[in-house]
């Protein structure tokens, strides 16, 4: 299996939301729905503060509970990768995957009612391009690539910088990493 991942440098992220708009326009999402979002997390008391910005989305987990829980097989892995997709034709809108996702990364498509989510822009990945969010980021704080390939930019960043993933304790083995 090819394991794709994203590495996001929170030291450079300014929380501008370009990734959100780029995803929305690239994937032609309807008003009110977004597949990615930005979190601002502040710690401390004035004036001893830190603020971290994180661009968040589906973690395309190696242990994807959403895929395991889907009763119809609508949630599935793209080709031989960790990229989780939803087949609208098989989705009944039961929302079991929403309950199973620790990251609240799934949305209900309007007006059709099937479940939608980040695709890591697999239609771009197939052509050798980065996902729209990564290729739009004006700070170049987002990186995409194959995690098990030691020479990839993402692997090199993970080998050289402190990092974290979100909700590691769920055992989902998420593939979106944050450099801290």
């Amino acid at each position: 299996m090819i394991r794709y991942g994203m590495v996001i440098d929170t030291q450079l992220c300014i929380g501008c939301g370009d990734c959100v708009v780029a995803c929305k326009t690239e994937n032609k999402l309807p008003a009110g729905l977004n597949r990615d979002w930005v979190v601002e997390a502040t710690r401390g008391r004035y004036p001893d503060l830190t603020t971290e910005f994180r661009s968040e989305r589906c973690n395309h987990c190696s242990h994807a509970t959403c895929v395991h829980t889907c009763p119809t097989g609508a949630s599935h892995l793209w080709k031989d990768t960790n990229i989780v997709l939803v087949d609208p034709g098989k989705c009944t809108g039961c929302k079991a995957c929403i309950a199973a996702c620790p990251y609240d990364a799934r949305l209900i498509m309007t007006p059709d009612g099937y479940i939608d989510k980040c695709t890591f822009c697999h239609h771009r990945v197939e052509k050798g391009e980065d996902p729209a969010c990564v290729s739009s980021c004006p700070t170049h704080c987002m990186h995409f690539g194959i995690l098990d390939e030691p020479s990839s930019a993402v692997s090199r960043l993970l080998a050289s910088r402190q990092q974290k993933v979100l909700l590691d304790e769920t055992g989902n083995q998420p593939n979106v990493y944050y450099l801290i």
Partner: protein
Amino acid sequence: MKRREFLKLSAILGAGTAAPGFLTGCSPPPLPGTGAVETSPTVCNICFWRCAGTVYQENGEPWKVVGNPEDLHSMGRLCTRGTGGLGSYLDPDRLRQPMLRVERNGRQTFQPVSWDEALDFIAERMRGIAEQHGEDRLCLFSHGVGGSHFRKLLASFGSRGYAQPSFAQCRGPRDVGFALTFGEGVGSPDRTDMEHSRCIVLIGSHLGENLHNGQVQTWIQALEKQATVITVDPRFSVAAGKSKHWLPIRPGTDMALLLAWMHVLINEGLYDADYIARYATGFEQLAAHVQPFSPEWAFLETGISAAKIRETAREMAHHAPASLVHPGRHVTWYGDDTQRSRAIAILNALLGSWGRKGGFYNQEKVDLPDYPTPEAPKPRSDWQAVVQKDFPLAPSGITNAIIDASIGPDAFFKGWFVYGTNLPFTIPDSARNLEAAAQSLDLFVVIDTMPAEITGYADVVLPECTYLERIDPIRNSPERNPSLAVSMPAFEPRHETKPAWWMAKQLAERLDLGRYFPWDDYAEVVDWQLQQVGSSLEEMQRLGVKNFPRTTPMYFTPGQSVEFFTESGKIELYSAMLAGFGQDPMPVYTRPERPEPGYFHLNYGRAPAHTFGRTINNPQLFELMPENAVWVNPLVANELGLNSGDYVRLKNQDGVISNRVRVRVTERIRPDSVYIVHGFGHTDARQRLAAGRGADDNGLMTRILVDPIMGGTGMRGNFVTLISEEYTA
């Protein structure tokens, strides 16, 4: 009856509701990019930075705008707003057809009219003004690239009156302050060499929230290379969060800090003595001048410890000349803004950063000739000498001075063109004066893409198409690498909208000034200009951007002799020119007024999702940030019993009350200040998304602190108190 009642057209609200959906087996939507894709080059006009990009359509439908990888100006990436640029084209609330103020049943209203009717009306009024008062009595307020067409029209008519709010409400003080010191302004894009800086000092400059694309990207490059960032801000801005040192300064005391930094650099011998000896004049006076301003003295004013002031000054000196004290951009704050900008310029001079790598570079642009047209007639008067006589050092038009000179029967200006700038939300404390000017003027034309509040004053509203539907003047901005970028129409203009070049030409023909616009299509002008530098419209249609080699050095060479464009030919630490005009030759500190108990400094700034108030109604950007919130320190919130999400109104010391706005309780602000993002609180119901959302900071600014040197409007003289919404409902 008023000559001009403020007009608000009631919105025709769409009543469409979606039927509740149920699943019947959905077919997957086709993957993006699998249909017939067409592209065309564009230059973004969502802000004035003008980044080059590519517009994509798929199966004839607008799809996306992305950066042009060849564009060094934007380094191939658009910002949030540029990525959301299609929203400006798709916005259902756009102006659709020309409108004329008419009186019907004793009430004034706008009537949709044909282009001929609208343009005939304007030409007729222009002739009337020329006959009655002179052809020099028109002026243009402009923000945006299309304004140049109207500027040409007015110049050919005989009027040179012109102002951009970006001078008197924004960066004028810094450009005047730097010009008084180095003989040149900072320019736009700012000539900061941040990608090579080892130390960057930001004073109230909130890069990252202010999303000037090249600025943000070069600052981030410096961060990536572990440059030291020192941020001076009463708020824990995004930049502060990425800084080695955050100095949460008491609002309005920046000058004290700047003087103390000079004191340390001079008294500890940390300044660039060779650079100062070679290039500067007035060092002895400056050294004597800053003696009283020790870090201990500054601590009492700023709240920044003396040790911190010394530590940061030494760190700047350590990295000099690759140490940049950033000039900022919106710097009309406290009325002594030119002097504060002078202090920043002087500090840079002491660090030797002007003309040096990692400091300020020399800009270059392409030598691009203008399309040959007859020379505009010499105006019969020097309007600046009349209207701006109190500000002889102001090199540009002062919006607020022009407004003042448009009120009353003896006013100088009799007709206004307002292009792409929503004056009531741009110029502080202007509502009353705009109202008065509207009663005095013989002609009031607004050109815009959106029903901004300013349209309510107009006789005629001309709907412009967006940048995605027109060809604009070539982008040729001075910067690191000379380059040209061309914007081609990606779409046909929607509704009955037209490009500014067409409007100006049509008016010119009605006024027998057609010889100044000798083309059928502005594309001819662009093509001719491009051919003069070895390119063509055909080539640029393909490339979008063309880069040219630099021909001049980017920095001073070591030991180079330099003639500065000042009176003395040197960097002027002491300004004889200022002294000659009765101003302080070196910056002095004035203690700012402090708020009464229960009142807070009203600070304001930008958010990355929006360009001023111009994009709030853009459907793609609105979603990202539909309204602003007032930032309140938890100590204050606790005392006032406020929680995040509560609605309050802001009331200033003159009793002006804002629209309701949500509270955001955050540690990221000093307890003596509140903060809101500028641009919200729209009142025109025709902007259906933006209307009534959030609070407008501009309306709360009633204590304008006018800069005595350049005439700008200092906007931080107001304090506000918070009123819980339940008490005002």
